[in-house]
């Protein structure tokens, strides 16, 4: 349950058993071809995988430099990579005989994905969500309710994602015998980070194969955004052993030199959050600092422990992109490619544009477009001043 010095199971004693059970069940499932088949069939026939690998020809032309390719996780059912993991975990939960799901959500994306699979598998679903986030994301709350999930308002702490996770864990401690905690990112105690990686590596597996089949080689650089880091770990995993440069992009918010960012690896220190040893944003007493990013999906004070490890050993380079740079990249991508990316994914695009300029047109960059930006149009409108301002 460790990635070097990172990872582990820093949880109340009560949760040790469900975590061991989960580990066991996961191991068993992953090596069972009928489970694998079920999982892949759901991905294909329900979520629409494989997702496309799009050559961003217009963006490439606009930027000048390396050829830019996009792995189109935005084309998944519910609009992001989150569903890959939700399907995997829900299938596992069913296999373990647990018909009640618990999930946390920040902006609501993972909540919607969880509510979605709960509906499809005929399961109950409780989604813990900070009251602040409920206020900011009423549409997603309504979507979850429409899908039959119960959205539980979290009033503890800052009433945001971090507290929703705390509260979900608290609920799980009490109900671990018949509930399955469907965690949304590659964070939390072992085996969650590993499990989420295994259910997200389909992104990288597909992209690698698609790219190789078309060009007979691998891309030179692979880029993904990192909040908790599930899309990134899914994308990077199949490339770890290859001679490919990997870049994780954190949310630089208003700048990593300010106090308003979510650049956990870049600026954080080692510690324990949500049951896992990793990098996090904290003060000298180990109290967690609320992060900031315009992107709700990157706005997490910790990061998946495997990323902490990959950063430490230098296999993946983690850099940051500010709100402003991400929005500019989102606009460029929209105008050149007709693709409205999630603000999360736009962080990866921004870095991709930056890197492409430094490379030749014989080289290629693969960017994980983790989700679509429909959910962000409100935020963008506010940022840009809306229709009236002739935007």
């Amino acid at each position: 349950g460790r990635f070097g010095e990172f990872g582990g199971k820093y949880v109340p004693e009560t949760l040790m058993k469900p975590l061991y059970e989960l580990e066991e069940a996961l191991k068993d499932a992953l090596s069972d071809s009928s489970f694998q088949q079920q999982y892949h069939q759901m991905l294909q026939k329900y979520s629409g995988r494989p997702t496309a690998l799009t050559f961003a020809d217009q963006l490439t032309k606009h930027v000048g430099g390396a050829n830019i390719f996009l792995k189109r996780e935005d084309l998944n059912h519910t609009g992001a990579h989150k569903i890959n993991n939700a399907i995997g975990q829900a299938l596992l939960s069913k296999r373990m005989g647990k018909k009640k799901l618990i999930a946390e959500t920040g902006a609501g994306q993972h909540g919607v994905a969880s509510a979605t699979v709960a509906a499809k598998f005929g399961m109950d679903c409780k989604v813990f969500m900070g009251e602040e986030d409920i206020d900011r994301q009423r549409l997603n709350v309504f979507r979850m309710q429409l899908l039959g999930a119960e959205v539980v308002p979290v009033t503890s702490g800052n009433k945001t994602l971090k507290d929703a996770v705390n509260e979900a864990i608290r609920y799980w401690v009490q109900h671990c015998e018949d509930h399955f905690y469907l965690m949304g990112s590659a964070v939390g105690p072992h085996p969650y980070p590993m499990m989420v990686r295994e259910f997200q590596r389909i992104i990288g597996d597909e992209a690698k194969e698609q790219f190789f089949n078309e060009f007979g080689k691998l891309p030179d650089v692979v880029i993904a955004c990192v909040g908790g880091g599930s899309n990134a770990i899914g994308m990077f995993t199949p490339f770890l052993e290859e001679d490919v440069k990997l870049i994780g992009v954190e949310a630089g918010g208003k700048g990593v030199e300010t106090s308003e960012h979510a650049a956990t690896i870049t600026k954080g220190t080692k510690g324990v959050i949500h049951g896992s040893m990793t990098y996090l944003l904290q003060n000298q007493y180990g109290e967690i600092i609320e992060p900031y990013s315009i992107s709700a999906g990157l706005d997490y004070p910790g990061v998946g422990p495997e990323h902490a490890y990959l950063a430490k050993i230098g296999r993946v380079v983690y850099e940051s992109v500010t709100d402003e740079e991400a929005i500019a990249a989102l606009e460029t991508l929209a105008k050149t490619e007709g693709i409205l990316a999630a603000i999360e994914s736009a962080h990866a695009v921004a870095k991709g544009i930056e890197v492409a300029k430094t490379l030749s047109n014989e080289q290629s960059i693969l960017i994980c477009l983790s989700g679509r930006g429909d959910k962000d149009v409100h935020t963008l409108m506010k940022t840009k001043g809306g229709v009236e301002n002739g935007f």
Partner: protein
Amino acid sequence: MFQQFDKLFIPFITAGDPNEELTIDLALILEKCGASAIELGVPYSDPLADGPVIQQASIRARRNGMNIEKAMELAYKMKERGLKIPIILFTYFNPVLQLGEKYFFTLMEKNRLEGLLIPDLPFEESGWMRKKCDEHGIYFISMVAPTSYNRIKKIAENAAGFLYCVSSLGVTGERQSFDERVSDFISHVKKYSEVPVAVGFGISSNEHVKKFFKISDGVVVGSAIVKQIEKLIPLLTNANTKQSGLQEFERFINGLLH
């Protein structure tokens, strides 16, 4: 340290709730009422093993500027004010980690803390910490839960001070009643434990205390006491009524125990 008592009564209070001075006053009353040790809680930003009552106390204490370092210094002040019973520092793991091993144990010793309880550091993650505590003569309190099953033996055999037996699933906080299987669970735990077995989580009435005094070596009472403190804040924090507040608290503790 704990074997000398007949039945253990280990109350939990949050450092700095409602303020430093009162935390000491309350600790002294708890000792007077027969507490075997004080579990002194370090308020934390993300207390994920705690229910709403202790979460609220954490928030109050953090608003007063309490942190792990000050909480440890508070233990020293308690001893200075005459507290004799052992003090167990209750803290989440991350604050300990941030102080760093060396500085943390320096503070433990300097501030005369006898025990350490880290709710999010289960057996598998605590080997190093247990060893260090041993070296520094500090009791590292281990917990077992109803879900611990085949891990009970290992945990019990390595327990120091007392073994904290979690009464039921869930976080800290009062419970109306307990699952009938709790007695079996406790007697199972006692089989392996060479140290006293105290039961905690949800013990909130005289009835509960009596029940667990019968089947175990003692009780840990947290939320019920913290809730009482919360209720008494208006009295306690007013100079004119502070004394009657403390008397009220004493009556409450006595009522719980006898």
